[in-house]
């Protein structure tokens, strides 16, 4: 029996081996923030002959979103940090387009003609009627000219200049008062502004690496909070990435893998537009389409990404 013990225990070794044929389960690290808190989408490049250049850094609304509506009413308070300089802008625009009056060129639809709304006020302040232009850069026969396609209404207070009495206030009620002009009847559209967003980090002077995570901190509560990263060349900005943030506790980490999507070969500086918006759709009589209304608090931070 004693001589059998070693072989028996060899057999036991083998049995132990066979019994232990489960695989070790990897340790799954729990993310500090759920993946759903951060949604990333690439943005289709803006067509240069669009009705307008991208103004997401001012309006907080993408051209692609805006283009879905024939009428838009925007109100935004913008902080724009470039280097150590901060510009503040209170901005409002109202644009109604007539879908029965398209602007096209050789079959290519460029937009719709604007509608004269008469007198437009916001909180009792008259908005300035301006002409909208289409940029025809890619049509040589036009030699880079623009063409006017109807009125739009704008009111802007840039660093206390221009409409210096027009000031965006967070968490406040604003109201557009449109006197109307045939065929548009007079109407009013109220809007509640969101809490003011102020980015604490990153600072505008920062040079960030797209190989490192970007930790963002801000103040202000936002029901809807998103970041639009746009490439900046001169005064033109090209929205590239949209990041929807579902956190409202004032900080989030943007992984390096998101930043790696930025075309640093094409752009050196990028505008990070942090946008808190309250949006709604409204309707008025004698205008069949819905009006896209957005009140936004925007903080634009220009960063160098390497």
């Amino acid at each position, binding site marked *: 029996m004693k001589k059998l013990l070693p072989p028996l225990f060899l057999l036991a070794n083998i049995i132990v081996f066979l019994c232990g044929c489960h695989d070790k389960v990897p340790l799954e690290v729990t993310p500090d923030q759920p993946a759903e808190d951060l949604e990333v989408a*690439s943005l289709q490049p803006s067509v240069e002959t669009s009705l307008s250049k991208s103004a997401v850094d001012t309006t907080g609304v993408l051209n692609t979103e805006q283009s879905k509506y024939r009428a838009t009413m925007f109100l935004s308070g913008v902080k724009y940090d470039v280097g150590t300089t901060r510009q503040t802008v209170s901005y409002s625009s109202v644009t109604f387009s007539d879908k029965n009056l398209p602007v096209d060129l050789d079959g290519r639809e460029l937009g719709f003609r604007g509608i004269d709304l008469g007198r437009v006020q916001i909180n009792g302040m008259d908005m300035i009627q301006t002409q909208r232009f289409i940029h025809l850069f890619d049509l040589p026969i036009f030699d880079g000219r623009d063409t006017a396609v109807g009125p739009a209404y704008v009111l802007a207070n840039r660093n206390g200049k221009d409409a210096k009495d027009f000031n965006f206030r967070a968490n406040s009620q604003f109201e557009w008062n449109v006197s109307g002009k045939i065929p548009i009847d007079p109407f009013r559209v109220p809007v509640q502004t969101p809490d003011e967003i102020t980015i604490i980090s990153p600072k505008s002077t920062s040079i960030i690496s797209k190989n490192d995570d970007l930790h963002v901190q801000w103040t202000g509560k936002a029901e809807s909070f998103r970041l639009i990263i746009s490439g900046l060349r001169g005064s033109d900005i090209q929205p590239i990435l949209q990041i929807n943030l579902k956190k409202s506790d004032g900080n989030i980490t943007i*992984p390096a893998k998101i930043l790696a999507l930025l075309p640093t070969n094409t752009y050196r500086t990028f505008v990070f537009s942090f946008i808190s918006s309250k949006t709604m759709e409204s309707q008025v009589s004698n205008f069949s389409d819905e009006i896209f209304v957005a009140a936004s608090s925007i903080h634009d931070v220009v960063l160098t990404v390497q």
Partner: protein
Amino acid sequence: MWWSRLGIAALLFPALAASQHLSSARGIGLAAFIASSNDLSSLDWNPAGLVFVKDWQVGATNFFSLTTNGRNNGLIFHNTGIAKQFLSNNAVGIRYAPGNNSQFVIPNIFTVIDTTSNIQAKVDKQLSYAEHYALGYAFRFNEDLSFGISARYREEQITDTQFFTVRDSLTYISTKTLSSSANSWNLDLGMLWELSPQWKLGVVAENLFKILESEFPEDLRSFTLDTRKAIRSGISYMPRKDLLLALDISTTGDGAAGYEWNVWDNLQLRQGIIVGNTLSPFINAATVGLGWSAKTIHADLAYLHFYDRGTHSGNVTLNDFTSHSIHDVEFHPFTSDQVRFSISVDLGHTKEPLARIDYVEVTSDIYPSSSETFAYRPIGRVKVRNISDQPIEAKVGFYLKPFMDAPTETRRYVIQPGAVSDIPFIAVFNDLIKSVTEPQLRDGDVYVIASPAEEYDDKSQARVRIYSRNNWNGEALTLRYFMTPTEPDVLRFTRSVVSSHKDHLNTVNPALLKFEHAKILFNEFALRLSYVNDPKLSKDWVQYPGETLSLHGGDCDDMTVCFASLLASVGVSSAFIDVVPPNNPGDAHIYMMFDTGLEASKADVVSKNRKRYVVRRNQDGSETIWIPIETTQITKGFEEAWATGAKEYLDDVELGLGLIKGWVKIVDVQ
């Protein structure tokens, strides 16, 4: 002194710390295993310990983790290995450990939503660290010192999910998976030093050398396992054979302490703690283990428990993961509680040497003509030392080729632990030895075979009767054992008698002093004692002299023994005369005679009657005069007793020829 060597060692290797290895349940149970490792797990703990493998050793370890997140995956095979000792002082070992790995899945912290599809790449990275293969070699420099080297093959792998923008007719985000690996060989050097039978010191230089096969790309290099070079040292102490205390410390500021207690035959209990400045909390973990061993088979069970229930519970956040560094494949801040089970078997020649030949001396040259004498006359001697801790039986064999057909072996000698025995050995030569024509020198083999000395091979019971102290078997030869000449009562009696007759004795012829002593003592003996029958109605009951004196009487045996003791206490030799008449054995009788010390030629001084004394040779070989005494005539005084005794002797010995015929025996008692 060994402790001075320890001090020197401490100077050379300042306080060191030890990381843990989880390849052996015994090592886990003890926690501090650097100085105690002596099996296959030495590949991890201290490669120098491989030298203690007896011949072959195979082993295997399984384990299961205890996590609180429900992700326990049953019994997992950890490792198996084999080790071999060769050329007495060398050993190698090799191990395959598929369970020696850690894998981490780092989730993505964002969701990609696109116009083309809703991409949700859930995993950001998958990290895998493994040391599946290890091999080692150890060398025993001398009885106390051994060195070893081990090499562990580390495989690190990262699978990274990368995102990129596709700019086609539409712009969208796509993913791809990139795998990178970083492999290396990591070498440890170890030393084990037995300072004394109780103290052992072990030192290991961990990851002393690293042979890089491949490495991660630069952007992922931060995920490389931080392989730290460290010096780890351990010390073990056995205050008793059944208790082992151990302590490990490391240059990384970590350490461990533990004990192993042989609570029962072959059953060991182990407990340990793991501590460290770099660990949180300081007492990071506790271990407990059981071990069972039976000669060649060893089974061990151990439980490892971490006090910090945060990262060790199986629930680890990304922040936890990035804020803790990992230096070891298996033992790191995310290791969970676990139970390990190990089995190992020693195969081949596993017998521990019990004896050692200290010295061989050949005491005689061999002359072929008288070669037969060496079959019974030793040809030499061997000093055999018992090097075990138990008694052994050893026999020595001698073999001289080609002059012996087979080794000649001695009988078995029992040698106590640590003792040395001189064993003479013999030799039985064959006929070839007689054909030697020229003197020659030859080397003979001398060997010792030892085995534990068993107390008995078999056991039975036998009923024996033990008689009382006064029982006598009736043989005159054994009657003398009842004599107590130095008993205090006897001495007191004789001293007082002699003292009271001092004046008389001073006037006696010195040649007759013994005679006078005997006479005085007998008369005093007669005054105080009387003849009585045996109280137990048994012939075989004898009183000791002290009893006879206190009882003031006895039968012939008692009186004879008592008087002989009295005489012996004053230096007078005596002899018992045992008579068993052939015609009437029931009348068996004992009387005595005493040696006067007188030369036979001076017998007239004692008596002119030749029949009243006996001339016989005393124990010195001299012929002296002996006086027969019948002690039962005690009441009639010395003269009567002498006369009766002389007559009995005449009748029994000289006339009856009892001595010659054998029915009279004379037994010298002093």
